[in-house]
């Protein structure tokens, strides 16, 4: 279980986020510039909140009151970045096992085989990231984060840089990931259809504030443009 309660001011954006996740896939949903990526960066430890508390399964990752701030490389929080960020000088195989080397986790061939199969990347292992397509890069990036045995997996709009055809290609892998990998996930997105397909819980953000949390009924009707409509008050629990 992930508990987040933090504030952070970034230029004109003032982020004030408080939510807890119950496992499964939690979507951070909101328009561009609503602070979604900054929040996952703070969970990962790449950005430091001004104040607040972040705890994962009861263990503190950050707590301004007691001065706790676990270094990013000790958090064991997997992060799939929007742009993949595969290491260009390493093969796909070396990218995949990078987290195991660095975290000092023993290699586990069975699990590696499982993840490689889950993501359908067995034919890519000897290649370099430079020669992969966008969809292939996304899948390798997911595999790289999964293989470090994360306690939590953050996915920051993993499909944002892909065209429609590639999104269709990736979606089934994400659904398998949700159903087969027993890792709680935070999925950042501004696309309601993705969230509807993947998430069991939604945290709705606008201008750095959590405007609603709840099930996927917190999402707007698909026909309405998400960016400038208000959240429905009937079913979503409003949080201020």
């Amino acid at each position, binding site marked *: 279980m992930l508990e987040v309660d933090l504030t952070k001011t970034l230029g004109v954006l003032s982020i004030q986020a408080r939510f807890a996740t119950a496992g499964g896939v939690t979507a951070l949903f909101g328009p561009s510039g609503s602070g979604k990526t900054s929040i996952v960066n703070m969970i*990962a*430890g*790449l950005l430091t909140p001004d104040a607040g508390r972040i705890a994962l399964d009861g263990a503190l990752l950050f707590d301004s009151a007691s001065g706790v701030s676990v*270094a*990013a*490389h*000790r*958090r*064991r*929080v*997997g*992060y799939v*970045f929007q*742009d993949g*960020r595969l*290491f*260009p*000088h*390493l093969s796909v195989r070396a990218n995949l096992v*990078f*987290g195991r*080397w*660095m*975290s*000092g986790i023993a290699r586990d061939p069975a699990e590696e085989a499982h993840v490689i199969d889950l993501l359908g990347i067995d034919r890519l292992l000897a290649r*370099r*990231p*430079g*020669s992969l397509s966008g969809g292939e890069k996304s899948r390798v990036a997911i595999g*790289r*984060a999964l293989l*470090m045995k994360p306690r939590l997996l953050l996915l920051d709009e993993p499909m944002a840089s892909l065209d429609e055809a590639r999104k269709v290609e990736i979606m089934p892998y994400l659904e398998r990931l949700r159903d087969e990998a027993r890792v709680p996930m935070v999925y950042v997105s501004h696309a309601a259809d993705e969230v509807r397909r993947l998430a069991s819980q939604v945290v709705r953000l606008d201008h750095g504030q959590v405007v609603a949390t709840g099930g996927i009924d917190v999402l707007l009707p698909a026909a309405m443009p998400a960016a400038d409509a208000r959240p429905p008050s009937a079913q979503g629990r409003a949080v201020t």
Partner: protein
Amino acid sequence: MQLTSEEWTAIELSLRVAFWATLVSLPFGIAVAWALARTEFVGKSLVDGLVHLPLVLPPVVTGYLLLILFGRRGPIGAWLYDTFGIVLSFRWTGAALACAVMGFPLLVRAIRLSIEAIDRRLEDAATTLGANRAWTFAAVTLPLALPGVIAGMVLCFAKALGEFGATITFVSNIPGETQTISAAIYTYTQVPGGDEPALRLVVISIVIALAALIVSEWFARKAGARVHGA
């Protein structure tokens, strides 16, 4: 083209001096370049200025400062002699030190630029995968900066081969000990009948410089292909 043993000595000495000057300054160059590119600390602009000073100072000034500091009676030179028995002044090792100091700004500059060009977000990604600062540097930053490291080494080596002013001021022009190609050419141009040996050494200089450029170009292309890895 027949070379005298004196000329061979000068060539061998030049290569030895340039090789050690480059090799010994490399770890320091990488450390300083990384600190300048990736960290903030008090006095950073001062360090930056000091590193670049040999580039803008007259070489004779740098050489004279080295003589004052590293000479047998200089504060560092005396300490080195008393503690380790190391003598730098008027020795080839002193020539290597002078060349290292003169080449250092070029080395640091090339490496720093290549580190600054690396996408910091790749380093962030390494961090989330459990890599601490040292491992992130070793496994991501340094390999990606390799073309710049090679370029910096070549510049430093070339500078060391051609260094004249600081070297001759610090360690003089002693055949067989501190007389590099540049110093030898200078000496030949000062004596009657020295044109022919001077010209031979000029040709040798050009050959060495060209070879260094071609070899480094090859390495840099290899490293570049690795980094951008298709």
